[in-house]
């Protein structure tokens, strides 16, 4: 959802331990599902917007418009269904927290940071490598998929009806693309001496520091305020 921003040490958010970011993301995502008070959700969303600004993630006008449009559609549909503006406001706000909590933190974590953090866990080396490949190749594959759809649209109606065009113009090329990438990446990994049976070594393992403690306390503060608005007031 959010573009990866800046180099590894661009801001204080980028320098946080990946697992402390993940912990806060999980806490916010779960809490957002339990909370129904729109003000409490607004506090959580406000905290995530603050993180977004601190991490200097800049969205384009088009991206902001698309997000606003998406949340407005949800608000309108919810209002039509419930006839309650409070209920209708709750769902887009919850969705907002849901769609910012983990993705912002993921966008500020460089693949090499994630590799170092994951290499300290008990996950098999092959799974860690597979996760990094998905992380790295998802944007490339999305771009390929976009180009395939554009090419199919340029061919127009000559390729049969819509399902046939979608099948021939998108699904089959994407399946071939998957096989093509597999062959190339496997060869590249094997040439670099990668083997799933050997544990990955790490020159600079990430360590939690003071900034992680402060980030955690601030997040707990926001979560506590939201909980108080929901259950305490």
């Amino acid at each position, binding site marked *: 959802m959010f573009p990866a921003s800046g180099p590894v040490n661009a801001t204080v958010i980028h320098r946080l331990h990946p697992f402390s970011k993940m912990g806060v993301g999980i806490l916010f995502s779960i809490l957002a599902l339990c909370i129904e008070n729109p003000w409490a959700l607004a506090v959580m969303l406000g905290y995530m917007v603050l993180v977004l600004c601190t991490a200097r993630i800049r969205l384009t006008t088009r991206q902001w418009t698309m997000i606003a449009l998406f949340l407005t559609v949800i608000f309108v549909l919810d209002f039509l269904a419930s006839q309650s503006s409070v209920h209708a406001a709750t769902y887009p706000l919850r969705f907002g927290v849901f769609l910012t909590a983990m993705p912002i933190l993921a966008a500020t974590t460089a693949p090499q940071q994630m590799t170092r953090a994951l290499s300290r866990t008990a996950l098999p080396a092959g799974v860690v490598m597979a996760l990094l490949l998905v992380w790295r190749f998802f944007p490339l*594959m999305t771009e390929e998929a976009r180009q395939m759809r554009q090419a199919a649209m340029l061919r127009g109606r000559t390729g049969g009806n819509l399902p046939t065009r979608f099948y021939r113009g998108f699904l089959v090329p994407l399946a071939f693309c*998957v096989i093509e990438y597999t062959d190339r990446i496997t060869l590249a*990994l*094997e040439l670099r001496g990668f083997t*799933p*049976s050997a544990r990955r070594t790490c020159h600079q393992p990430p360590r939690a520091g003071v900034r992680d403690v402060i980030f955690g306390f601030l997040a707990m503060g926001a979560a506590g305020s939201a909980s108080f608005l929901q259950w305490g007031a």
Partner: protein
Amino acid sequence: MKKPLWTTREYVFAAMISAALLVVASIVIPFTLPLRIPGLTNAVNGLFGSFFLVIGLIRLKKPGSLLLITGIYSLICLSVSPLVFAFVLIGGIFGETVCTILFKGYHGRLAPVCGAVLYEMGMFPAAMVLSFFFLPERYQELAPWIFIVAEIAIFTTSLIGALIGLKVARELSRAGRLQLEES
């Protein structure tokens, strides 16, 4: 050195299938989720998800293949939400358990189709149970027939997707890019 359960190529293939599942979900979900029809997102996503899963399972064949693909996919989904992680993983475990008991792997053509369909069908009840846990007031009013209709829709679309996947696997086999067993 101990021989690993999966080779580098198998890990890479599982990762690429997971990436394809993510690409498809990123296109389909934004269009279907705002409509808020129970099971619609799963039904539409099942059509394309099972397509790639069948190709992945035909290639990997070993018991645990579905769990490998869905495990990688669910760990990536953890960067979206822990809830998505949970129901993707539950769907994967369900499909894998049934297929391991019945077929002991993904040899032939029935097992990959069965695995993909069971995964898609297993995800929806898991998502509903988790949603009910967090939002009981919304989901307690959901009539059972809606759940059954949604499951039938998911079964139908994911079966169609899986059969299309099987057809493409044959084309890939003819092109010499995938080894397909005759059964």
